[in-house]
């Protein structure tokens, strides 16, 4: 097989993502683990293994994440089947709308869910949903729905649907066609989305604490408790190591699945048949109840004032509330700027890394795939504290620099870009390259003119994720000391909710609604790029 890139280009491809992840992730993580475990790590691990509480925590973390993943996939793939058959413009709209939960702080969503549970009678008398594992699972589906709908839906839209039509003509039913023709071809996108959902649920913090109640703990909440509340760095570091190993194992398995050569065949331009009306409406109802319920509560509260309904809370965002070092509008602006920077970093690093993963030497591709996904499954405390003690000397004394925030956000954005791009790049039919070669195109030119336009679909979806993740990021940001003028919207929102008073609460709700509108419009703009159109040929 010919090498698709020249030596110099290959160097840059490998070096940029490698340096990024090494300096901003592995070095900090290694430093904090070494600090915690350097003394006598072995004993700490033995203590951990001997503690039934810790064993329970590890077990609970794994199974709730696995169950969250299964539920999200079930609901999300059903929705993706509908989305994939919509006209391109409407697909983009749906993809933008489902992203909204990404930017909502858990403290706000938990409150909205509690309200939904109360209104629907799921939280009174003998049956209480709050503080059960079901509340955690529902919230995880709420937050991760977008991952499946967006990643699988956009991939699905690019599949050649003539195969399904052929199956139907040959007498297969709708379900059989899906199971035997569509599902195998979707596998790369599904396993990619599944890994992200698992990791997000694996490291979810606020959902577990607030909706799960004080009796539930996961590795993530336990690392926080040990590192911040108890300042037992050794135990925290041992748990962080356990988390890292578990995530590594999962990612190895999931990339195995994903690497199986997909059945190619993509990019038919002709319009496809829409899904059956009942199926379409059914999915719409599920989506509306799941996302619309809590979001509706937030919107209603944001307009509700002491004297009926009005825009008071929105107007108040322009003035500095006493709990904030700057007006909420400044925080919103900061968040947008951070998100743009984080997205730019994530796209650059993620794009190069995806090319390495797909076209690079097997070993390097493997390491890239694993290494770049790890931040998604690593505790915000570990990342934040690690950066704090590792990046403390020139030329990398970044601890209080403006850049540290978008870099931390991009660490989480990169895996999204890689995991949406790689399946798309892998599915490109080799026949196209052969044809290009026959027609006299150099390998580099073939990549440029074939891979990039097709890969663009994955890239814009990944960029949308990176933007949304950054806009809503709370954990890592709160563990990095920052100047007050760098206040982000999620942190402002949290501050508004920490003092009693209806006015502040209303402003917090208005701020979350603005964040939702912002992310939906931004994702829409990002994905309106030429590349995301359905027919790329």
């Amino acid at each position: 097989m010919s090498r698709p890139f020249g030596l110099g280009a290959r160097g840059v491809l490998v070096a940029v993502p490698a340096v990024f992840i090494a300096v901003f992730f592995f070095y900090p993580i290694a430093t904090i683990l070494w600090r915690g475990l350097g003394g006598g790590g072995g004993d700490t691990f033995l203590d951990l293994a001997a503690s039934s509480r810790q064993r329970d925590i590890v077990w609970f973390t794994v199974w709730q994440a696995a169950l969250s993943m299964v539920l999200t996939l079930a609901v999300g793939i059903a929705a993706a089947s509908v989305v994939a058959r919509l006209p391109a413009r409407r697909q983009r709209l749906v993809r933008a709308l489902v992203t909204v939960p990404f930017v909502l702080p858990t403290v706000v969503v938990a409150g909205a869910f509690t309200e939904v549970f109360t209104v629907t009678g799921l939280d009174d008398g003998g049956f209480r949903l709050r503080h059960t594992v079901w509340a955690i699972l529902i919230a995880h589906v709420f937050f991760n729905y977008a991952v499946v709908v967006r990643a699988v839906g956009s991939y699905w839209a690019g599949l050649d649907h003539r195969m399904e039509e052929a199956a139907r003509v040959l007498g297969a039913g709708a379900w059989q066609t899906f199971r035997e023709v569509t599902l195998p071809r979707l596998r790369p996108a599904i396993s990619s989305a599944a890994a992200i959902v698992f990791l997000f649920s694996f490291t979810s913090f606020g959902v577990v604490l607030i909706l799960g109640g004080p009796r539930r703990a996961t590795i993530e909440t336990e690392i926080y408790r040990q590192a911040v509340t108890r300042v037992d760095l050794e135990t925290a570091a041992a748990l962080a190591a356990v988390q890292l190993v578990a995530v590594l194992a999962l990612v190895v398995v999931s990339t195995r699945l994903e690497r199986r050569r997909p059945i190619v065949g993509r990019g038919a331009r002709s319009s496809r048949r829409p899904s059956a009306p009942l199926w379409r409406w059914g999915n719409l109802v599920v989506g509306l109840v799941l996302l619309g319920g809590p979001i509706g509560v937030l919107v209603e509260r944001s307009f509700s004032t002491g004297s009926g309904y009005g825009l008071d809370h929105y107007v108040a965002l322009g003035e500095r509330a006493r709990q904030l070092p700057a007006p909420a509008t400044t925080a919103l602006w900061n968040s947008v700027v951070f998100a743009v920077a984080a997205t730019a970093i994530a796209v650059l690093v993620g794009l190069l890394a995806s090319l390495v993963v797909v076209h690079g030497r097997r070993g390097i591709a493997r390491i890239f795939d694993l290494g770049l996904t790890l931040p998604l499954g690593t505790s915000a405390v570990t990342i934040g504290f690690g950066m704090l003690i590792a990046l403390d000397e020139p030329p990398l004394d970044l601890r209080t620099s403006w850049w540290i925030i978008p870099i931390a956000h991009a660490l989480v954005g990169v895996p999204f870009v890689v995991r949406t791009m790689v399946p798309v790049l892998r599915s490109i039919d080799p026949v196209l390259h052969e044809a290009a070669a026959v027609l006299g195109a150099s390998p580099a030119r073939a990549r440029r003119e074939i891979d990039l336009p097709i890969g663009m679909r994955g890239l814009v979806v990944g960029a949308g994720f990176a933007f949304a993740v950054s806009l809503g990021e709370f954990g890592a940001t709160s563990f990095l000391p920052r100047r007050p003028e760098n206040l982000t919207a999620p942190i402002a929102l949290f501050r508004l909710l920490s003092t009693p008073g209806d006015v502040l609460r209303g402003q917090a709700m208005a701020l979350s609604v603005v964040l939702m509108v912002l992310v939906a419009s931004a994702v829409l703009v990002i994905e309106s790029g030429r590349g995301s159109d359905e027919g790329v040929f």
Partner: protein
Amino acid sequence: MKKPLLFVFVLLAGACGGDDEPGTVTLMTHDSFVVSDSVLDAFSAETGITVELLQAGDAGTMVSEAILTKDAPLADVMFGIDNTFLQRGLDAELFEAYESGNLGGVFPELRIDDQNRVTPIDFGDVCVNYWIDALPEGAAVPATLEDLTDPVYADQVVVQSPESSSPGLAFLLATINGTDDWEQYWADLVANGVSVTAGWEDAYYGEFTAGGGDRSIVVSYASSPPAEVIFADPPVDTAPTGVLLDSCFRQIEFAGILAGTDNRDEAEALIDFMLTPTFQEDVPLNMFVFPALESAALPTEFVEYAEIADDPQFIDPADIEANRDAWVERWVEIVLG
């Protein structure tokens, strides 16, 4: 190929040049710290010193961060370490001693570090709050900690877990100090249907009357009633909530000069300034705590709607540090068991 290189260059350029110019002092605080711009401007005008602020998460996170970065401190002065975390900071030798000339005006009972490694700046009490109109019919206003175990308040109380919440820990400490047998007390609270949440927001806005919940008694702050008035919508004349003074645990917030500072003079000037009326009178309405300086005037909302416990619950920081883990673990067994 150029763009990635340019990016790395920008990154490195941004990393350099972080040195403090002379006349600058960096103040590390928790996220709740807010001060009016005019107040810091007054300090700068007076002394020529610029204050750079660094916000570092909640108080616990901030202390952990300071301990982690002790060899290369992020700041010159820390503000916001309270008596529940104080001993941890002192054990880690985070601070350099400094006796401010303005310390004489501070309430004597707040001066709990006789070596002056830290200086008291403000205090705020964590107290049980109740929504006056939502208390069960026929129930009087609770007056003592023991009252909360009375069946008349069954299923009315919501508290935070001391494992994950600062007011939750403070309330546990209040019960350890304020009841004869705190373990029995909590067993009684459990029997009376106490609800536990992970954090303050979830308790106050999730289960307490304020957020539409069905519980009328919550662990919050002594300053919550004035906040309910100041941020009411529509405006109100009286506070809808009251405070159970017997339950109040005093949290004192301190400032200290971080060991190894290159700006000792500026740091001292900043600590002195934090004990002037200019700074102290700015504190209540920004951070909803009470000034440490006896002579500082309180805003009218605080005079009218806030009550201060004469004899708050208090435990020596060294005792807290020595027993915290054991107490919290015992609490978990009794309450969450």
